[in-house]
């Protein structure tokens, strides 16, 4: 009962700002509405017993990516873009496509008999994640560092003024 109430509140906290993100005319408000969306998703992770991922969600999405997006908005058109139309001529198509896809996805999700695996989630997820990452997923872990390196180099090359 308590969990269901928490779930409904958190879903609302996630989805209502998400609507603002995709519809607001003011692009800064859109970006700021990302924060409650991400925090709501953090709450959903908590309900799913993924504490560590929840902490990361706040730190990276709400604390870092949103800041970077806000920086770029302020460095480009920022609030001056309020007077510009923010949507293109595909609104009808967009509504149709996403509504169809949503209906389809939900239909599939509800009809599929999901299997239930054995075992239970550990109480402390952080150290388990560390062990998984450093043993069976070590290749993923190392490749991640390369991906980070390459995207850092690429972004610096693209963003810097050519001299």
């Amino acid at each position, binding site marked *: 009962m308590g969990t269901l109430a928490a779930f409904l509140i958190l879903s609302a906290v996630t989805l209502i700002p998400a609507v603002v993100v995709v519809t607001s005319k003011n692009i800064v408000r859109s970006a700021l509405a990302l924060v409650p969306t991400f925090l709501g998703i953090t709450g959903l992770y908590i309900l799913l017993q993924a504490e560590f991922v929840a902490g990361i969600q706040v730190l990276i999405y709400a604390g870092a990516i949103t800041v970077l997006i806000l920086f770029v908005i302020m460095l480009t058109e920022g609030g001056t873009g309020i007077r510009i139309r923010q949507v293109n001529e595909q609104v009808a198509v967009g509504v149709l496509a996403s509504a169809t896809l949503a209906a389809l996805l939900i239909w599939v999700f509800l009809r599929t008999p999901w299997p239930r695996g054995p075992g239970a989630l550990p109480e402390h997820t952080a150290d388990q994640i560390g062990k998984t990452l450093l043993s069976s997923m070590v290749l993923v872990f190392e490749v991640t560092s390369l991906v980070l390196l390459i995207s850092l*180099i690429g972004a610096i090359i693209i963003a810097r003024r050519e001299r």
Partner: protein
Amino acid sequence: MLLDWLYVAAFAVIGLLLAGLSLAIVWVLSLRSAYPEKRMTYESGMVPFGQAWAQFNIRYYLFGLVFVIFAVEVIYLYPWAIVFRQLGKFAFVEMLIFLVVLLLGLAYAWRKGALEWI
């Protein structure tokens, strides 16, 4: 575990409510006199011109970018930090490779002047 986070949620909600309450008290207690000059943007006494929502230096973006990349790196350090003792030398070497690769990134950003503020 959920109980812990009930407290977190309570802290967040009560924090916002109490801060809002202080503004509500102000609303009740304060005298209000609105004349146009009071609500003018403050620019050291000059009459403001233009919008503040203008564009700024690209430097801010470069710092934001390097920050995001290294913030992501730090999240991998946390789970490693609490288990590497149990996993021994292998885990240390893995993290050594990871960090050296990222130090290369830092060196590149440094070399290319992404960390300079001019």
